[in-house]
Each structure stands twice: as C-alpha cells, then as structure tokens.
C-alpha cells in the first residue's frame, strides 16, 4: 500500500537523540553549525552570540571545536576578519565546479545551447516556455547557464509560484562576440525575407 514503510511510527530515533542532547557545548556547536550553514554571509561571534543567547566566549570556544572538527572534512570552517563561514575544501573545487557546470573551458552542452538560443531569440522566457519548446525538462540547463552568467533572472511573474523570467546577459554578448542582440544572425527558421506579410518591423 501507499507508503506504509514507517516501521517505527511514533518513535523517531533521530529526533529523540537530538532532543536528548544536553544544552552543553555540543548543543551550542551544532546550533552554530546550522546557523553557519544557512547564513548567506560570514557571521561574527557577536552575531552568533546574539542569535543563540550564548556568551561570546562560549561561542568562540564552540567555533574552535567546529574548526577542529571540520579540519579534515569536505567542508571547512574559515575565519576571515573575525567572521566565520563554511566553505568547501579547496582541494575539492574541481569536483564542485564539475557539478555546477562551472568548468570554464567546457563548451555549453547542446541542451544549454538550445535553452540559451530560445532565451536569446525570445528576448525573455520562463522555464515553462522553454520546456514547452524543447519538450524536455530544462532545469539543469538553466542552472548551468545561470552559473556561467550567460543568462540572468530579469524578473518574477506575478503569478502562482512566481516563475522567473530569464534574459541574456552582457557576458552572453561578449562570449559570442556580439555587441547587441540585434547582431544575432537573422535565424530565419523559416521566415521568408521577401514575404510582404513578414517584412521588417516598422516601429
């Protein structure tokens, strides 16, 4: 039946062990760990102290323990100008780049190029629109293009889910040696130039 795989309904071992953790050093360290994880900037000991309610010396001690803990991990704790943040270990940067499609020399995939082309020729497009044309999920293609700064989010539609509208960037133009989108070859996917009905725009 449906999903009735929960063997221990009601007794969740994870939650219990967490709840049973005394509010000692370990409790503070794991709170700080969570804060550093969600923060979108480096956090100072002062700031952490004010959020956690712990004293600054306690926070510093816990940060020291975390730094030690993370020393050999894939994620490390960095301190810069008295502010702390979690970053990936430097030796793993290549793997991370590969995951994020950040490899500079790599040519965009066909999926990425198709997506890019649709955004460029349409001027702006949502994910749904792109997927309608391509007929396939285009999430990762979009993620790659965003990460490479070839497209950007122009705005969000005032509609359920607030879908993002993508547009090309200056980096896109530079990458293809263009100075404006008008220089894109008239990709006449079937526009007959001499057809009176589809002549040049008269604006």
């Amino acid at each position: 039946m449906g999903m009735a795989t929960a063997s221990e309904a009601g007794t969740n071992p994870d939650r219990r062990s967490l709840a049973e953790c005394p509010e000692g050093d370990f409790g503070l360290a794991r709170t700080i760990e969570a804060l550093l994880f969600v923060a979108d900037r480096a956090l100072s000991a002062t700031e952490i102290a004010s959020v956690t309610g712990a004293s600054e010396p306690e926070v510093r001690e816990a940060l020291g323990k975390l730094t030690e803990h993370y020393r050999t991990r894939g994620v490390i704790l960095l301190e810069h100008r008295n502010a702390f943040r979690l970053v990936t270990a430097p030796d793993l940067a290549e793997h991370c780049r590969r995951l994020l499609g950040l490899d500079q020399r790599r040519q965009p995939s066909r999926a990425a190029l198709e997506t890019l082309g649709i955004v460029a020729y349409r001027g702006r497009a949502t994910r749904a629109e792109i997927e309608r044309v391509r007929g396939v999920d285009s999430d990762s293609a979009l993620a790659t293009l965003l990460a490479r700064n070839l497209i950007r989010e122009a705005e969000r539609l005032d509609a359920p889910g607030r879908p993002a509208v993508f547009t090309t960037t200056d980096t896109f133009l530079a990458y293809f040696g263009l100075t404006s989108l008008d220089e894109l070859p008239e990709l006449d996917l079937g526009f007959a130039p001499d057809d009176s009905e589809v002549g040049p725009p008269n604006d």
Partner: protein
Amino acid sequence: MSTTWGPAGQASALTGFEIDVGDFEGPLDLLVRLIEQQGLDITGVSVLAVTDQFVTYAHHLHDRFAEAASEFLLVASRLALLKSRALLPQQESDDDEETAEDLAERLRVYAAFKTVALDLDERLRAGQSSFIRVAQPDLPHPTPEPGAGDLARLLKALERLTQVDTPVESIVEAPTRRFRVADKVRELRVLLESCGTVAFDAIAVDCADRAELIATFVAVLHLVRQRAATVEQSGPFGSIMLKSTDGHGDG
C-alpha cells in the same frame, strides 16, 4: 463509533450537530447508519431539510466551519446517493451496488487522509523545520571568456531543435509534411484579427506533429518580434496567451 466519518480519535467537526427530519431526531451520522443498516426509509428524509439545518448549525461554528462543511458534504452526498437509489427504478443494480461500495470505501480513504493532515498539522505546530542552504557556492565563478563562444554551434543547436533543413528555403521540414513559418504567421495573424487573444495550447492542439508545433511556435516568436502580438502566461502551468497588439507592426 460515535462518528463514522471523523478521523480516528478526533472529535468530528459535526459533533453536536443534530437534525430533526420526519421520523428521525439526532446526529446526522446516526441517521445515515440507520438508513444503511436498519433499513430506515430514506424516501421520507428531505436532504434539503438536512442541508438547511446544517447551514443554520454551521453559522455558529466560526473557525471549524470549513472542516464541518467538508464533513457534511461527504455525508450529504452519501444521503443523496442513498435517496436516489431508493427513488430511481433499479435498472443496473450491479452497477449501483458497486457505486455504493465505492463511495463507502472513498469515505474510509478520506478519513485516513484526514488523519494524515492532522499529523502534518501537528508537526508544523511543533515548529520543527529544516532549512536549505541558499548562499551561492563560494567558488570563483569563471566568467566565460569573451569571444570563446561558438555562434555556429548555438545556431546549429537551434536549427536541430527546429529541424530546419535549409535556412535558405525557409522551411521547417517534417518527414511527411512541410510547414512554412510564413504560412503559420499568416494563419496566426488571421486568428488574432478575429479573436484578439488566443491560447497557445489551443493552437498547439491543432498541430499535427512536432514539426508543425515548432513552426507555429517560431511563428509566435516572429509575431512577438514584429510587435504584432504579445505573450502572457498566467502561472507556472498556465496557458500562454497570445494577444494581438492591434495594428502595431502590421506590415
């Protein structure tokens, strides 16, 4: 067993709702049980009267109104079904039997999912929640090198997407049929002129295959670039609406 349709262990939002119709006076679910199990004659029970009394009762419910209303709708629909079966000539009794059982099962399934909803609600009230990381990865973003892009590859990708055979001939080719984008543009213009607004889905439905769909889509792009039309989408899965801009760019 005080309520048949409430979630297990949870007081029904209809608790306390008593009706008075004809021969019966008491809780609604008891009425249904009497009809089903004891053979109480439903033809003497007015569903309208039951509904009327519910409306009066629900008036004072305030915050549990929605809950009570959804429970009531289920019971009332059951009553209506029972009554229709009693009143209508039994033509396809087998089918009728199935329908009644289906409904009974549906009610049980629904009760189970109400329990699920309660559990989820409890979790939320406990305030526990996980947060994802939103910060940009702290990796140097290599900017694509200026000039390193291959425009030919970009065009080729698009060309393949649209299955253009030769750009010179300006034709989107399908194995069996060919579609001139210019023809599609013309068709769309005519359509827009008469309707003003057209849903892309509605046009797409008429497309015989992918090639025609693509030709149509390219035609839409063309109209937008010509400022003869604008496109709007109402939501993530909403229809793409193509709107005539009336006169602009009308070649």
